[in-house]
């Protein structure tokens, strides 16, 4: 039954049938071919989405859209460029930095790419950064949206692998900083070697003045991650509560402080966020019946045993996992990949003595890279759309940034402390 299901799934999946429908139909047909009642499909799908923790997903998506409409991305970019924009490669650095700021408020990496890219790509171009390098940088740093908390990817992982979402959020902070900093360094070296994005001469006093102005302007936006992460860290609220607070807070500053959200925008913000959430949650729902069939047929168990027989070495196991997940990330959307992979691999990782939170971060970072690996690469696609470029034109710069990201992934994989240290505080 599970075999039939997997074959049908693969065929539908390759024929570009929506993933939710591929998961649903392969389950339905496998059940029917087995001569059983398909009533169970509805039950499992409802049970799969009837979860309080999952509500953090629509709320963080909504919060991201509120920010985008509330003029927050622009203020963050202003602050970042005031801070680091004056040295060589500074505008690239500011792009990454503002992405990091925005990532700490938005739950999704595509929302982050979209919000930041539209502001930063034209600005970098003005500073002489080749457009394809600027675009590649935006796409690559956009993945931080899923790594720096909050992150809808982490919510889904925590949910399917039964791991603390608050724990994952905290564990993502240092890996996010690490990737951000290494992208900044790469870009500065690149600017020096290729001679673009020259330094700006600026008086110290004027600089401080401008910095202070930008900081004041962005202050209320910057309080957002303080509230979200501080609240989770010090135990005031759960991720779902943090998400709804982010929404309310975002509306308050968008409406009353920055006054950039208008009543007439509301329906568009809400319905767009609702549709985005629905698309993700529909996959969550239908993966519930799909994994149920896998479970009843003991497939995760069998895969686990197979891997353990293949290697008893945890280092080799992690390398294998990274390769498999990387390939999955090339072709699959993040949420779908996690929903299918996490329930199978996490128990095996636990057998190898790997901390489930660390393992989660490895998978999340890997799949975040998947957002910029063709052929299925939403961030790359979005950034190209903003810059009006074709994906092939990004080939050279992406090769460079991708290798930096892969090195980061390996470092994060083999040094658990990068993820887990913060939890021991």
């Amino acid at each position, binding site marked *: 039954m599970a075999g039939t299901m997997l074959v049908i799934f693969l065929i539908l999946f390759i024929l570009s049938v929506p993933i939710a429908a591929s998961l649903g139909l392969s389950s339905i047909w496998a059940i029917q071919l087995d001569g*059983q*009642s398909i009533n169970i499909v509805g039950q499992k799908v409802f049970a799969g989405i009837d*979860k*309080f923790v999952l509500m953090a997903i629509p709320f963080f998506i909504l919060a991201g859209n509120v920010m985008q409409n509330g003029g927050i991305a622009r203020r963050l970019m202003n602050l970042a460029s005031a801070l680091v924009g004056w040295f060589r490669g500074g505008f690239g650095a500011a792009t990454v930095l503002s992405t990091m700021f925005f990532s700490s408020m938005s739950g999704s990496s595509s929302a982050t790419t979209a919000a930041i890219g539209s502001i930063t790509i034209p600005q970098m171009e003005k500073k002489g950064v080749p457009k394809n390098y600027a675009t590649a940088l935006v796409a690559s740093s956009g993945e931080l949206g899923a790594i720096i908390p909050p992150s809808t990817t982490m919510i889904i992982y925590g949910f399917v692998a039964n791991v603390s979402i608050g724990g994952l959020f905290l564990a993502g902070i240092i890996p996010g900083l690490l990737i951000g900093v290494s992208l900044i360094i790469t870009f500065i070296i690149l600017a020096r070697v290729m001679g673009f994005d020259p330094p700006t001469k600026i008086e110290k006093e004027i600089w401080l003045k401008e910095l202070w102005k930008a900081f004041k302007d962005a202050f209320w936006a910057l309080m957002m991650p303080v509230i979200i992460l501080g609240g989770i860290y010090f135990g005031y609220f759960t991720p779902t509560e943090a998400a709804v607070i982010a929404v309310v807070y975002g509306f308050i500053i968008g409406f009353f402080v920055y006054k950039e959200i208008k009543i007439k925008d509301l329906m568009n913000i809400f319905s767009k966020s609702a549709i985005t959430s629905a698309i993700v949650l529909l996959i969550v729902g239908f993966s519930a019946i799909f994994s149920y069939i896998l479970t*009843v047929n003991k497939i995760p168990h069998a895969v686990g045993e197979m891997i353990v027989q293949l290697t008893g070495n945890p280092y080799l196991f992690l390398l294998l996992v990274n390769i498999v997940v990387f390939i999955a990330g090339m072709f699959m959307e993040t949420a779908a990949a996690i929903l299918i992979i996490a329930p199978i691999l996490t128990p095996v990782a636990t057998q190898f003595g790997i901390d489930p939170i660390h393992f989660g971060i490895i998978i999340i970072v890997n799949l975040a890279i998947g957002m910029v690996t063709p052929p299925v690469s939403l961030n790359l696609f979005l950034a190209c759309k903003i810059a009006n470029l074709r994906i092939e034109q990004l080939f050279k710069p992406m090769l460079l940034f991708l290798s930096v990201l892969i090195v980061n992934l390996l470092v994060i994989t083999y040094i658990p402390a990068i993820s887990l240290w913060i939890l021991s505080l």
Partner: protein
Amino acid sequence: GGESGSTDNQSDSGNNGGGSGDSEQTFKFTSGHTTSVENQQHVGLVALAELLEEKSGGSITMDVFENSQLGSEPVMLQAVQDGSQHIVATSSTSVSNFIPEWGIFDIPFLFESTEQADEIVRGEVGDRLFETLPEHGYKGLAWLSSIERNIYGTKKIESVDDFKTATLRSIEAPGFVETFTTLGAQVVTMPGSELYTALQQGVVEGGDNSPELFLGLGHDEVSDYYNLTKIHYLPIAIIMSLDTWEALTPEQQDMVMAAAQEAAETGSAAYAQSYEESFIEMEELGVEVVNTDLTGIVEATKHLKEEMANNIPSGMELLELIESNK
């Protein structure tokens, strides 16, 4: 649907176990529970699987899925209702979502001890509840031990006054929420999987569960106190899909019934043993076991008994039956 289960689903029932179509049908049951492999639910179901295979000479086998692999109790009950899952071990509270009568056990201080609860549940009262099942597509097989739910966490509860300043997580059952609220506590409902983090981070100060589940879930790591509040004793039932039951021959039915009784005894014995061991383990782990003064708590919730029973179909009748059996 529930009502149709007893009559017109007969034609489907051959599919339940992937039968061969011969007179001597073979069955492969799927069963599940939400606890880990050390708990009575697992011990009981595994014992049942072994007994079934042994007594049927291999024609009936059963897979046991632990740790909510097949979903939460209500989700499994739904699957059992339409026969896609065959057997479930579940608490009475989850059944009450489908059959309100089963909510009777959410009334506070219904029993004084596990022994008392088990004796009453395995008698007339339990039979009455099992009689409500077929109409909804279920067949009751046996009762595992009732579990004693106590409140644990970062809050020491010595008397009724301590509830007034407590934030407690409750399972999603009106009886529980109402009891804790009546006692003056702030009540948060959240899935059990979030309770660990919630306790760790201080989102709530307490939750309730039986001693062995408290330890099994690792909640001792984030708790300082295990308060013996003894408010609820929740029965755990082994329930089968009526479709599956009716697909069995009368001989097989007798055999399944006998096997379930025996398995339930094995499971209950495991509960009794782990109950004792849990307190020794708590002492080793440095969790303080608090002998809560129950008088004020019983007093403050006394009026709930009839109030809640009145909201349950044949609740008063069941309540009187329980009281008269004490």
